[in-house]
């Protein structure tokens, strides 16, 4: 069975190559010296590394990632935050810029509030901790949050930010993309509608080539 060509959708358990000549990357596993796909995704080969970029699935947190979270529960000195990962993340009061008395956590962030945060820590049991102590991390006021597949985030940002800069320029919206598949946008209604359409198209056609050009044509046509 020959390994699949570039940009092909592969399925779990599909043969990707021999581990004597190739290195297994993300989304793959080795069994008896052979590399197989682990998830439904797009096959990619960089040098001698083969990997599968998942098309679906939950956000897999990485330390240092910028994420957009929604407060699930306020506890006396910490919050549980949903960041679209398999597990809720913990935000402790000591990781916020505010001076909070024990029991006052809820006065600062309530259930349903949204925050821009950074992944601080992931332990062996995959317990997550967030922080608000960094530049550009704060509680979100105004704007909208939309959800996309976390695996499509690189596509929405584009090569060196080409796609996101295009979207910002042509829709005049403020856009902040969280690595966890949540996107915060702000602008006037007409532009937001255009932006939403563009993002849906990027999501649907993420496998195809020349997407940035297509989106540029589309947005210019609408103005």
């Amino acid at each position, binding site marked *: 069975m020959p390994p*699949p060509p570039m940009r*092909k*959708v592969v*399925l*779990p*358990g599909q043969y990707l190559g021999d581990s004597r000549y190739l290195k297994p990357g993300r*989304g793959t*596993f080795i*069994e008896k010296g052979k590399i*197989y796909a*682990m*998830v*439904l*995704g797009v096959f990619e080969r960089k040098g001698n590394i083969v990997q599968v970029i*998942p*098309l*679906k*699935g*939950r956000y897999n947190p990485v330390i240092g990632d910028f994420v957009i979270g929604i407060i699930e529960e306020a506890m006396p000195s910490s919050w549980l935050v949903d960041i679209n990962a*398999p*597990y*809720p993340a913990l935000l402790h009061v000591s990781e916020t810029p505010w001076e909070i008395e024990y029991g006052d956590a809820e006065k600062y962030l309530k259930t349903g509030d949204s925050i821009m945060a950074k992944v601080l820590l992931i332990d062996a*049991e*995959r317990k997550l901790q967030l922080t608000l102590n960094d530049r550009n991390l704060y509680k979100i006021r105004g704007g909208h949050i939309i959800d996309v597949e976390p*695996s499509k985030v690189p596509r929405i940002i584009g090569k060196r930010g080409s796609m996101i800069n295009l979207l910002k320029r042509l829709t005049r919206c403020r856009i902040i993309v969280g690595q966890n598949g949540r996107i915060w946008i702000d602008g006037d209604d007409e532009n937001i509608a255009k932006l939403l359409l563009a993002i849906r198209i990027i999501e649907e056609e993420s*496998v195809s080539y020349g997407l940035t050009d297509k989106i540029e044509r589309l947005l210019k046509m609408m103005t």
Partner: protein
Amino acid sequence: MAGNAEEIKLIDENGRRVDGRKPDELRKIKIEAGVLHRAEGSCYLEWGGNKVVAAVYGPREAIPKHIQDPVKAIVNARYNMAAFSVEDRKKPGPDRRSREISKVTSEALERVIITDLFPRASIDVNIEILDAEAGTRCAGLTAAAVALADAGIPMRDIPVACAAGKIGAEVVDGKVKGGCIVLDLCKEEDNYGNADLPVAIAPRTDEILLLQMDGHLTYEEFEEALELAIKGCHIVSKLQREALLRKYQPDVEENL
């Protein structure tokens, strides 16, 4: 399984079955991936007269906490038959049969899912039988496998299930006479046949994930039925992969 075989002739002189199939022929199967937008992964499957919807949620933190496993995810399949899925209303809610099927399905799926990537989490699979016509556990597991792949759950393989069985044997003077090993029993064959052997495998390695038997088979018959069922599994497996690629990559032909 002891039926009134005299009433219905399950297999005729030409080797044709009650619904006109050959002994090694499957019923019609239709699979569609990603049909529910609330679930993370889903699948709709029609297998003969069976209609099944499977939905996958997770991986998410297992609740209540005491069921969590600190080193791996737990797989929770729930098989349920709709009240209108059978002749004469089925009383809703879990019963002995559906709990058994939920358990064996969970264990079969757990074998292929890479659970150690998600400690403390649970992966929930809901299998709803909307319409039943023999072989629902195989149809349910097959649909669940497609839904899991659709949800982006890491797996070693896409499991698949299919049944084989024995029909048309008669008891003469206390001895079993005749009978024919066939693939994928239909309703009449299940009710009045001699044995049913549902099998689930991981098609890449042919590892057996589920094996149950209802009725009686000799050792030779069992071997023959198992081989036939595995053959059937491979045919269904191809349909599963086609369904997933149809959804995620339009040019299916090139990829297979």
